[in-house]
């Protein structure tokens, strides 16, 4: 099976994730969409690794998973803190960094 199919799927998933990040305002959903994007990247890495017959791409995929886990920990922590402080669960409401 040519690698192109995997890449098309990866790009498809990445686009879904990116669109979700762009359009959704609930931080929980944005985190989910981020996971989609990361995993699309993983898919592409693994596909390339298979194409080249090396293992570097797979190692990269594992590292990305670790990073994804870390990111989820931090992101969920922020969301829990928002709940605790009864802040609106809406990323557009949190624009204090406006210049």
């Amino acid at each position: 099976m040519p690698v192109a199919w995997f890449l098309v799927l990866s790009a498809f998933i990445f686009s879904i994730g990116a669109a979700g990040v762009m359009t959704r305002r609930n931080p929980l959903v944005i985190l989910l969409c981020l996971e989609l994007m990361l995993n699309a990247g993983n898919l592409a890495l693994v596909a390339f690794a298979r194409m080249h017959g090396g293992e570097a791409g797979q190692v990269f995929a594992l590292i990305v998973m670790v990073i994804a886990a870390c990111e989820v920990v931090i992101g969920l922590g922020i969301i829990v803190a928002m709940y605790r402080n009864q802040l609106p669960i809406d990323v557009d409401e949190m624009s204090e960094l406006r210049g």
Partner: protein
Amino acid sequence: MSATSYGWLILVFPAVGMLVVSLGWRVLPGRTAGWIASAAILGSFLAALGALGQLDERAHVDSAWTYVATADLRADLAILVDPLSVFMCLVVSGVSFLIHVYSVAYMGGDHGYARYFAYLNYFVFSMLLLVLAANFVLLIVGWAFVGAASYLLISFWYRRATATHAGIKAFVINVIGDVGLVVAAFLLLSETGALDYAGVFAGAEEAFARNDGTLVAACLLILVGAFAKSAQLPLHTWLPDAMEGPTPVSALIHAATMVTAGVYLIARTHPLFELAPTAADVSAIIGTATLVFAATVAVTVTDLKRVIAYSTISQIGYMVLGVSVAAYGAGLFHLMTHAFFKALLFMGAGSVIGAMAGIQDLDRMGGFRRAMPFTYVTFVVGALALSGFPLMSGFFSKDEILAFTINRGGGYVVLAVFGYLAAGLTAFYAFRMVFRTFWGEPVPEARELEGGHVAHGEPVNPLTGEPEDTDVGFPGPEHHVAERSWPMKAAMGTLAVLAVIGGVVGIPGVTDTLEHFLEPTFEDSRYIDAVPTEEAELLGLGVGGVIGILGIAAAFGVYVRRPGTAARVRERFAGVHRFLVNKWYFDELFDALFVRPFAAAGGFGRRVIETDFVQGAIVGGATGLVRAGTSFARAIQTGYVRAYALLLLIGMGGLGLYFLIAAS
């Protein structure tokens, strides 16, 4: 001890006195500060006498410190002890000592007593530094110090606006002179390669032909310095205003010592002026113009101190004329006698002003003859000496200058004729002061003094009539007259004796002591043998004496015999009187020529250059640019997380696209 050791001692005494008085002002009780300062000047005078005893034919130079020593340039902290500098030191420290003693009483009760004496000692130190300097560097240092001391003392009553303005005016005009002198020193350094007097004079002989253009320019620049300090036309306007200072200051700085620095400078640099006769002629003509001008103004001014101030300008004109026509001995002789009788006149004026409780207007004075016999006698002695009354000191010195001037022949005779005319005016205005102050009906203040106590008016500014208090920064609450304080009496008495007998050192044909004494300094003069014959000098003395007596008689006729004459003449020649009373409109001329154009240029600069160009265009442009840039940067920072994500995505996408295109 050698002559130069005494020279250093002359400088050390007033410097130490200044430090002691200025650092100890808080703990010195009563009049101690005044006595310490006087003792310091007495020490200087004694050291000058010591130096006099050690003098011989050659000039002694001693250096304490070398500022610069390179192949082409050498500048030392060096003093020069020769007959001229010792003579100046004796006059300066001697007269200064008497004025210090006078001030001890006169300034008593003033709230700035110690400050006053610290300034006074500082002045004497600066003046002695000026006359002892052995090179142009130290001369300029002393020159500038003296200007600063003059500024401090004119503005001594610093809460009086007119006094501070007068101080600023004096300082600015003095700085014009300083600049002239500094540029002259640069010119001479670049042409002769030396800064010390001996080197410059020797180098000038080699470097310049007679009347060389550069040398004439340098001499004219020296004259700018000399004229600014000595209040000669057209840089004289500060001196009458300087009368805002305390009266002893007027006596010391603005009559006896500082204003004669220009005369000293011309005498000191005489080898240059003899090489550049054009510059010497300019100096002689300006000196003559000044002495005539100032004498005419002194006839009409009604402020007692300002009459004496204009008289000073006029008398310095004689000295400048003298040293410019190579009559160095005569010029310096007049410098000495003038220091005696002019300081005496100022002291007498101070006593009268004390009796008038601060009023200086001649129109309000009169009849002090009986109330103040001592002041009257000494003032008349001073006025006689000033008038050149036969056998008084001024009689010998002034007429010797004019005799030398005539002896040069040619156009110089015209200058001497003007000198004799002004001598008549001098006698007239001197006795105008005497008759209007001491003769006639006693004014209320005089009657009060006869009754036994000094008048006590409300403290006002004598010039503007503004009310004042007597705290620090204004004159103190007490007024002093010579009749009641022995230090004033002692100082005036000594000066009166000197004003009478001061002439004995220069009676032509009998005693030429002073000229012989100064000869080593001036023996290189090419006019050393061009002395008038004894008959010519005696004839000059006779003419001068007659003119003086005629002037006094005229004043007697106008102010005593027919008291209304002055008013009639004033009405008859109202235009002339207005012209003279306004001092030939020199202040107005300078105002129109310099002050207003500069003020207008300044206003233009402030409005257009500063406000519109600098603040508007340069500063405003820079801040506007930064502001525009930051507002753009702020606009990007929306704070919306999704907007940042979009930008990130676009960036990454753009980058990816670029690599794709680059790879294909």
